């Protein structure tokens, strides 16, 4: 067994273990973190296949962004693991056929009788750049499919925002443009007061005037 094969089995074992834990972990936050580990191991496997662009993008997009938001939501939900468990028997009649279907598909593909598994990819020449090859194919041969996928994603984003955005009537929202335009003169008023010692204010002639000034300025607010 050479070094690369050893690496493959190492990452594959972690991937399988993490995937299993995603399902059986009691705490949803732990499950989400195991999913992160699974993504990371999958990226390592792709790296072994010399698909470095896909591997890094998997880490960048799924691990770095999608799963962070996922965790963000899961952490804020107050989930009781024991109550979730009670639903297992209710969903079992649906879950079993789906699981069976997936298992059959995997056997068909891996069994190599009807759908022969693709042969192991030949080692690529040293100058081969997966990133470049992918970009060339994506923007020439599959450019329409690529653009259609992008538009569908855009529509999904717009729909998600349109469905969930509610303007609260009682929100004390301030227009940032107006905030930026505020000048010192609008908010701040510098009062000139005469210096006086403690106990002398009562006899000072300017004191009532100064006091009225302060009162009127606070009244303006």
């Amino acid at each position, binding site marked *: 067994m050479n070094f690369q094969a050893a690496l493959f089995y190492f990452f594959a074992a972690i991937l399988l273990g993490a995937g299993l834990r995603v399902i059986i972990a009691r705490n949803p936050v732990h499950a989400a973190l195991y999913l992160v580990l699974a993504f990371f191991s999958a990226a390592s496997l792709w790296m072994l296949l010399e698909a470095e662009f896909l591997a890094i993008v998997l880490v*960048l997009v799924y691990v770095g962004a999608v799963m962070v938001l996922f965790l*963000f939501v899961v952490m804020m939900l107050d989930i009781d693991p024991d109550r979730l468990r009670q639903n297992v028997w209710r969903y079992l009649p649906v879950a079993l056929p789906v699981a069976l279907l997936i298992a059959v598909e995997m056997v068909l593909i891996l069994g190599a009788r009807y759908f022969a598994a693709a042969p192991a990819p030949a080692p690529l020449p040293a100058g081969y*750049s997966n990133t470049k090859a992918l970009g060339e194919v994506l923007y020439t041969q599959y450019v329409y499919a690529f653009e259609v996928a992008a538009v569908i994603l855009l529509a999904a984003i717009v729909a998600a925002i349109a469905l969930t955005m509610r303007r609260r009537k009682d929100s004390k929202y301030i227009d940032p443009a107006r905030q930026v335009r505020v000048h010192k003169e609008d908010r701040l008023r510098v009062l000139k007061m005469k210096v006086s010692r403690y106990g002398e204010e009562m006899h000072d002639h300017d004191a009532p005037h100064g006091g009225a000034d302060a009162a009127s300025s606070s009244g303006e607010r």
Partner: protein
Amino acid sequence: MADLGLAWEAAWPAVRTLLYILLILVPLVLSVAYLTYAERKIIGYMQVRLGPNRVGYKGLLQPIADVVKLLMKEIIIPSGASRGLFILGPVLSIAPALAAWAVIPFAPGWVLSNSDAGLLYVLAITSMGVYGVVIAGWASNSKYAFLGALRSAAQIVSYEIAMGFALVGVLMAAQSLNLSHIVEGQTGGFWHWYVWPLFPLFLVYLIAGVAETNRAPFDVAEGESEIVAGFHVEYSGMAFAMFFLAEYANMILISALTTLMFLGGWLSPLPFLPDGLLWWLLKVAFVLFLFLWFRATFPRYRYDQIMRLGWKVFIPVTLVWIVLVGLVMQTRYAYLVH
């Protein structure tokens, strides 16, 4: 004896790589220690104070004293904490901050891994850093820590997009994801540096970098005056020091990347001066000084203002500039961006 020689021959690449890693990490950790000293001194002078001046000559041994103090302190794990994750948090925070240095070139040929996907690798690895903060905040089982974690997650995800777009501009200009090639594309004096044709992207990258490292004025994840210390409020001793170390290592990393992508890396500003590591260090030090300067100058952003700046200002600016760069590259003025 022959077997031993063969084994040594097989092990040598691994040993050599380990030595290189040490050669990068030891100076890095030392710089982190003295960056904290520089920060306290510089901000001290900006605020007309002296800064640390008791331990050693002009306080030069202060970082060493701090490290010793943190090493001696007990690591307290709160009784309601999720134990494993509580310890994993600081580890996940420091590991990406150090791992990203694998592809950073210091001078021509001085790089651990001269990867063709270097820029993507840096983006992917630094995007992992947020897990340290999020896990620490959640595992602490404390309201303040949790609020800090949520703020940090939202902030880092928002600013990563603007940062990524700024990098797209750089790779369009350099036509490469290899950091060494990006630097070589800026050869020939400071007027060839990418900071000029990509100036808006440079500003966006620098400011997003400050936000990514949770530094003032974007330090809502810590926000001492609002949520005590945010995600690391329950940490003590070396566990806390790991977060501290990660923040400063990330600062140096962002400064190094800004230097490589916009300020010509190790290239000298004038063509007749020799290139070298010294220029790299000077430029990184300059960007680091900006980080400290920002902290001493600006008050903390409000949370909604941070979100507005990231989504409604930076992302549109980068998108417009990428399109502009793309258009210019199709005309005969393409030399302006190359």
